């Protein structure tokens, strides 16, 4: 049986694949999958340990002065004395950040909605959303303080201002990426724009919205802290922003670092909540959140 051979680059089909090498008997039953809790907790912990070790090593090796970067052990040792003064500020910042986050989520979503709904609104408003994002808080802080008074309300608004654009930008991209045939199907069935939005475009945009919220989770915390710089409330009511300013001024670095760590925890918690919603809402249908086998 003579067969025309014209496949030089790839091994011709006739070449026997050595069964030992190529045969790939698969595991009869799925091994416990990688989705265990440990596989989620371990990597960040490992990174943490490595980072802390590196941090200590760099300080020891290069003699980084303690007034610039405190040693991990100093920070650890500060926990005891500082914890009492950090709980209240952390709670205050948390309240402002989460409030700002919610506000940013609602407003950011609403603005994106309006822009997706009316093309003119998009063209008219988008530049000003970018602009809003660029306005330095210091320029509007006095206005806010005068209107809303110093304190949590102002800080919540500042947090929202900083966090709103990522939500808008991502939501808008999502709303506009919706499958065109589905959109036409809705139109043909006589769906109102409102119905099309709520039943089709919004669910479709959900993965995008959630990415925006991830970003907003961190932004709102930094926004709350920036607000606290501005609002000028001392003491526990001043939140972590107050603690950071005050400790920075006094070069109380271990305590400053603790305050920063507290701020990070506030944002990680919020971030974790967003992730949870993401996993719950998307895992059944969206690529980015689905398990790998099917």
């Amino acid at each position, binding site marked *: 049986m003579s067969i025309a051979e014209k496949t030089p680059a790839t091994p011709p089909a006739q070449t026997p694949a050595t069964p030992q090498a190529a045969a790939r008997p698969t595991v009869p039953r799925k091994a416990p999958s990688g989705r265990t809790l440990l596989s989620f907790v371990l990597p960040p912990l490992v990174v943490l340990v490595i980072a802390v070790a590196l941090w200590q090593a760099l300080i020891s090796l290069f003699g980084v002065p303690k007034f610039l970067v405190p040693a991990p052990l100093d920070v650890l040792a500060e926990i005891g004395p500082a914890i009492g003064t950090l709980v209240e500020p952390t709670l205050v910042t948390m309240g402002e950040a989460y409030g700002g986050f919610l506000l940013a989520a609602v407003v950011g979503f609403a603005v994106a909605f309006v822009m997706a709904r009316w093309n003119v609104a998009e063209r008219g408003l988008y530049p000003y959303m970018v602009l809003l994002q660029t306005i330095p808080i210091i320029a509007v802080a006095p206005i806010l303080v005068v209107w809303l008074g110093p304190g949590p309300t102002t800080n919540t608004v500042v947090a929202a201002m900083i966090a709103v654009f990522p939500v808008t930008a991502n939501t808008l991209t999502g709303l506009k990426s919706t*499958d065109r*045939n589905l959109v036409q*199907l*809705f139109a*043909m*069935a006589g769906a109102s724009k409102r*119905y099309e939005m709520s039943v089709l475009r919004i*669910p479709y945009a*959900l993965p995008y919205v959630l990415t925006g919220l991830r970003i907003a989770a961190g932004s709102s915390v930094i926004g709350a802290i920036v607000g606290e710089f501005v609002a000028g409330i001392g003491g526990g009511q001043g939140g972590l922003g107050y603690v950071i300013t005050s400790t920075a001024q006094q070069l109380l670095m271990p305590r400053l670092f603790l305050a920063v760590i507290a701020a990070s925890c506030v944002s990680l918690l919020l971030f974790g909540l967003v992730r949870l919603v993401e996993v719950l809402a998307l895992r*059944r249908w969206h690529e980015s959140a689905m398990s790998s086998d099917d």
Partner: protein
Amino acid sequence: MTTAVQADLVRFAGVTKTYSNGFTALAPIDLTIGPGKVVSIVGPSGCGKTTLLRMAGGLSSPTTGELSIGSTQNSYVFQDPTLMAWRNVLANTELVSRIRKVPRAETRRRAVEALRLVGLENVQKSLPRELSGGMRMRVSLARALASEPDLMLMDEPFAALDEFTRDRMADELIRLWRERRFGVLFITHSIREAVKIAHEVVVMASGPGRIVEIVESPSPPGTDPDAARDTDALDETVKYIGARLAAA
């Protein structure tokens, strides 16, 4: 009571379509779908069938020519399933009735009935990604059937189905048509199916996309409900259309 003269559902008069990249997908098209008429379209891949169907459904506008659409409630079965990935089978099927604010119970009844017709009554709660390709296409079909339109536009709705399911679906479509007499514009690659199902078969050719002939079916759907329709005439028409297609 005098019977009103019913308006044509769709009328193409010298309609052409040139896409934005400059490609002319359709040379002038003249075609009329009368009320309650079943018209099928056959033609080689890429000859402009989908383009024509989209225009009939108002999803795309002609580049030149006159297109009048007289139907008020269209259903469209896309060439791809086009389902909402986050909604289950039942919700996807109920979509159009929901949009049209049909009462809840009636919406549910129609959807369940349509799913039964396409053989998917057991997967109502499944999400599209949990279905096979053919099942997804059948959900899309059920969605159209449940919507009770006056013009049904279908783009190769049975292509992903096995022969038996396919024949059953075609029979169901005709049975429904007998009940409701909606208009149908139906793209298929099966010439036999095209002839069996329709009053007229539109035979298209490409280069540029055009209608080469509109063939009357020897066994239109309205005529003889339960008689065997696999007559010699049908065979002959199938052969004739095959030859027309091969020649073009």
